[in-house]
């Protein structure tokens, strides 16, 4: 069943210098529990596409549907994870994780208990009353994920979620996050410029052209369908082949 449907979406934005075509005529259907990675060079409109799906931006033309319902603004079925954790330094870990629930006015005792359970399950038990500055980068990223999951979205949008971490942590946190998202049967759309990251995590990799961003090609990654974790995928011989194909696609001029 299609969870997310992007139909002929274009977005132009206006500046004093003129009109910029950010993304143009994008159509893409994402199935339930699918993990789709979108790769493209910087400035190709990948993040814009996520903002369109989340409802933060409205398309100039076309529309986005989630569960057959047109997106009109930020909605509860979608969770968005940004490039950095952006934990609020004035809030404790628990209060940071509860931020989304607070804003949606859904901070019930049951919801709080569930968030506490999640913190515990993901290795953050005992850190509830700590402040973000006292945590490592990987732990902070996990808090950010819990903050997003707390509001119970079906679809998660990840905007280069590991780019603020060093290489060692990227692999470890990536492995964990994918595990969590699969356990919870989430549909995921991740934007990245890191091809190995995309290939290691996604069921499908979408390659975008430079601005104005269009879809150049879509690659199905068979390894993820088999249920391999990102680290296992990276060890497979096909990994290199996928990497090379997608790398060439990204750098093709047409």
């Amino acid at each position, binding site marked *: 069943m299609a969870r997310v449907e992007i139909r002929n979406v274009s977005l132009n934005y206006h500046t004093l210098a003129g009109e910029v075509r950010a993304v143009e005529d994008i159509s893409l259907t994402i199935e339930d529990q699918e993990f789709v990675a979108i790769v493209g060079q910087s400035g190709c409109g990948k993040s814009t596409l996520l903002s369109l799906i989340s409802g933060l931006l409205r398309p100039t033309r076309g529309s986005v549907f989630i569960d057959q319902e047109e997106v009109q603004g930020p909605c509860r079925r979608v969770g968005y994870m940004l490039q950095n954790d952006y934990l609020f330094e004035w809030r404790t870990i628990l209060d940071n994780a509860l*931020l*989304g629930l607070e*804003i949606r006015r859904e901070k019930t005792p049951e919801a709080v208990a569930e968030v506490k359970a999640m913190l515990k399950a993901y290795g953050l038990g005992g850190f509830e009353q700590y402040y973000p500055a006292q945590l490592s980068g990987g732990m902070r990223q996990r808090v950010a994920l819990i903050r997003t999951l707390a509001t119970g979205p079906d679809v998660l949008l990840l905007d280069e979620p590991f780019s603020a971490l060093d290489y060692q942590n990227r692999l470890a946190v990536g492995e964990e996050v994918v595990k969590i998202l699969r356990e919870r049967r989430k549909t995921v759309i991740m934007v990245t410029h890191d091809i190995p990251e995309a290939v290691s995590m996604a069921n499908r990799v979408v390659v975008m052209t430079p601005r104005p961003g269009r879809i150049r090609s879509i690659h199905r990654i068979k390894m993820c369908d088999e249920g391999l974790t990102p680290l296992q995928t990276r060890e497979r011989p096909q990994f290199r082949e996928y990497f090379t194909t997608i790398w060439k696609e990204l750098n093709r001029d047409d």
Partner: protein
Amino acid sequence: MTEETMSPEHLAYLRGLRVKAALVRGTQFLLLVGLFVLWEVAASRGWINAFIFSQPTRIWAALVRLYREGSLWRHLGWTVWETVLGFTLGTAAGIVIAVMLWWSEFFSQVMDPYIVVLNSIPKVALGPIFVVWLGTTITAVVAMAIAVSIIVAIMMMHTGFKEVDPNKVMLVRTFGASKGQILWKVIIPASIPTMIAALKVNVGLSLVGTIVGEFLASKAGLGYLIVYGGQVFNMSLVMASVLLLLAVSVVLYYGVTFLEERVTKGRQ
């Protein structure tokens, strides 16, 4: 680490630091004492005219007299009260106006030149206007204190609001936050350090406003004492009042610093 587990080198290093700090403190103290001693000696030997320059013992006598008359606390109290009123009201109004500027880009653009102009005029020049409008009352003095501090408060807070990480705003917007929620959940808490900084600046500014206000329109307060002392040529009274003023500003400043430590505890 405890004293026992430290290496002798590390202990020597720590001792060095302490000695250095003590040296600085000691020199600061000696400098102050030295100046007062020099002043006292110079006045009593007749190198300077004690009638014009006063001298520490006379200042002390003036303070004691004020205390005995019972007017010391009255004057101190008035000045502190007016200053505290001035800077809390000035800062509060500044924050409210800054919120309005943040809320409406249009309002902010319209107000911009007015704020720039109001910021550039010396507010003490408005003193006589307040006296005429509000009479020689505490209201005029507090108005003066507010006038001196409010524009700076508006500008500091508005800049602070605008400098809040836009990604933090974006984050709460992904949860569907309204403008009011963005204000209360992100902008205000993120600007607490700016608010404290504004308070710190405003304590000093409000004190300026209060003293000028008291010069012009009051029957009590340190500003009144200074003007009165000047008019009756009692320089010891003037100097005593200035020293009291110094004490007031130090106490107020450290009050705000104390508040800052309480509020920012736990943050980075």
